[in-house]
């Protein structure tokens, strides 16, 4: 179990960072900076490592650092790995980003005052996750000062998983599928039932799970990732920050696909698995297991075909992998969530008609 968490924690993306040409004042222009960015980290945390590289060539002025990819300003409060999974459908290695030290697009991006902004964004997300899981933020708010420092440092450095786990376990944020007693807002019971086919966690609980879903749509099928349309505007992505509600049901396994569908009720008539469905899935191709190399064909749709569904799930990517959609959701959450206890899921949907957004 620790294995998967360790891989997630140590996952990193090689970046090649180019200074925007408008800010180059010397000849020859500086070479791009190469840096390995932790998936679970955030871009502004890399600035102290990047700045020295470009310092001597910057125009005079105050630094207001921001990053962009192919013209799209990057939202600094989204973990680096999620940005990569979302914007680089066919993984690009190294990932070529442009850095700006001037001209912060304050009408689009929230201001960032360096490490403090990132830290507090992280802590606020952690509080939100805590509220979703436990119904209150008390455990986060009552963290001792040394614990807070320890927690942030372990994330900031993405170095010490053990240190992080030690502090994080004190927060009692066990998610569905683990032993905890859910204290739900709705006052419902805790159901402790193991599923028919054993998943590693063994228990199905009723509860709410912190999830952030990033959904983008295509109107035409694509077989190769390189044919997928480039996301060039944040308007093309729906950001859904809504907890997944799990209702433990005897003999039924709540899968990753179930979870995704439950967050998109306008596209899927979500029902829990019936016998009819399970037999249908046996006949389908297995979805290919994780590979960070690009260019793999997407497997055939594992979508079941409810007549009322008006979309198909084309791609689900979490921490750079495309998990089998039948995997129990509780396993996915426990092993692939980020340190602030949110599970970030990038989803591509095929819908019948995609609107072309107007500019602005």
């Amino acid at each position, binding site marked *: 179990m620790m294995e998967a968490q360790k891989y997630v924690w140590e996952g990193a993306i090689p970046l090649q960072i180019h200074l925007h040409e408008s800010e180059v004042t010397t000849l020859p222009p500086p070479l791009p900076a190469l840096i390995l960015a932790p998936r679970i980290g955030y871009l502004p945390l890399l600035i102290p490592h990047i700045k020295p590289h470009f310092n001597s060539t910057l125009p005079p002025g105050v630094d207001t650092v921001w990053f962009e990819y192919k013209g799209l300003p990057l939202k600094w409060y989204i973990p680096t790995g999620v940005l990569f999974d979302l914007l680089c459908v066919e993984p690009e290695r190294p990932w070529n980003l442009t850095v700006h030290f001037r001209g912060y697009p304050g009408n689009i991006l*929230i201001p960032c005052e360096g490490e403090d902004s990132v830290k*507090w964004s992280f802590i*606020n997300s952690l509080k939100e996750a805590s509220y979703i899981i436990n*119904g209150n933020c008390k455990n986060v708010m009552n963290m001792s000062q040394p614990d807070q420092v320890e927690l942030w440092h372990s994330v900031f450095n993405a170095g010490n998983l053990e240190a992080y786990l030690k502090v994080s376990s004190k927060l009692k944020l066990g998610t569905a599928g683990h032993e905890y007693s859910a204290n739900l807002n709705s006052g419902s019971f805790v159901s402790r039932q193991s599923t028919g086919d054993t998943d590693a966690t063994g228990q199905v609980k009723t509860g709410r799970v912190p999830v952030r879903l990033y959904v983008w*749509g295509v109107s035409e099928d694509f077989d190769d990732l390189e044919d997928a349309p480039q996301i060039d505007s944040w308007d093309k992505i*729906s950001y859904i920050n809504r907890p997944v509600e799990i209702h433990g049901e005897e003999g039924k396994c709540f899968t990753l696909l179930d979870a995704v569908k439950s967050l998109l009720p*306008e596209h899927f008539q979500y029902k829990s698995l019936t016998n009819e469905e399970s037999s249908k899935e046996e006949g389908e191709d297995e979805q290919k297991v994780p590979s960070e190399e690009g260019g793999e064909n997407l497997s055939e749709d594992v979508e079941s075909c409810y007549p009322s569904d008006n979309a198909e799930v084309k791609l689900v990517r979490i921490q750079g992998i495309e998990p089998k959609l039948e995997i129990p959701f509780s396993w996915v959450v426990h092993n692939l969530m980020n340190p602030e206890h949110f599970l970030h899921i990038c989803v591509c949907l095929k819908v019948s*008609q995609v*609107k072309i*957004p107007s500019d602005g």
Partner: protein
Amino acid sequence: MDISSWDGTISLAEFHVAARALVEKWKRVSSASPPWSWVSCPKQPWVASHEVSVEGYLSLENIILVSIKEEHDELLSFPQKEETSCSDKEESIDIATLSQSDRDEICYYDLHIVYSASYRVPVLYFRVYYSDGEPLEFEDIKKHLPAHSAKTLLDSKWTFITQEEHPYLKRPWYKLHPCGTGEWMKLLFQGDVSLARNGAAIEVYLISWLSFVGQVVGLRIPYEMLNQL
């Protein structure tokens, strides 16, 4: 609603009911003031489908919340037309005690009430800007906030009012942190015997919420709003 076991939070459906109630009552009670309106937003704006369900938020825009230097009550004023000239503006402002220096610093607020699925409560988002549309720097906003808010900001810089992306407009807005909302809404309702007994409590949820939260930015709720029907 059984108040004793209630935790102060509401569902999305309840939020919609409460929002409708706020809009209607506000219109009835303060027909002279700018109205709250419901703004519908498609959940996935890139999908050209009629079946895409629609969410939304409450909006009250282009209002002036003037804080008078003697710390009297803040007043809710009429929205100003942007195209009027300076002198026209001064005449059409219906505030008796506005001093000269205050007039130079008039700023406008847009207030949005958005439902949070995580906290299961409403959340206040706001922007502040000058008459030319230029947004205020955070330091200047602090000067315009009522004194008690400014103090709370000093004590909890990162957790009281923060800048975050508006869930629908995708632009930076200021947001009031919802962490304690459930708790104090429960206290509020428990403390009011008539509310606790009244089955229509959800309809007054937002109005009660706004009477508390509005104080942060200096929005005063007309007294009649708080009367039970």
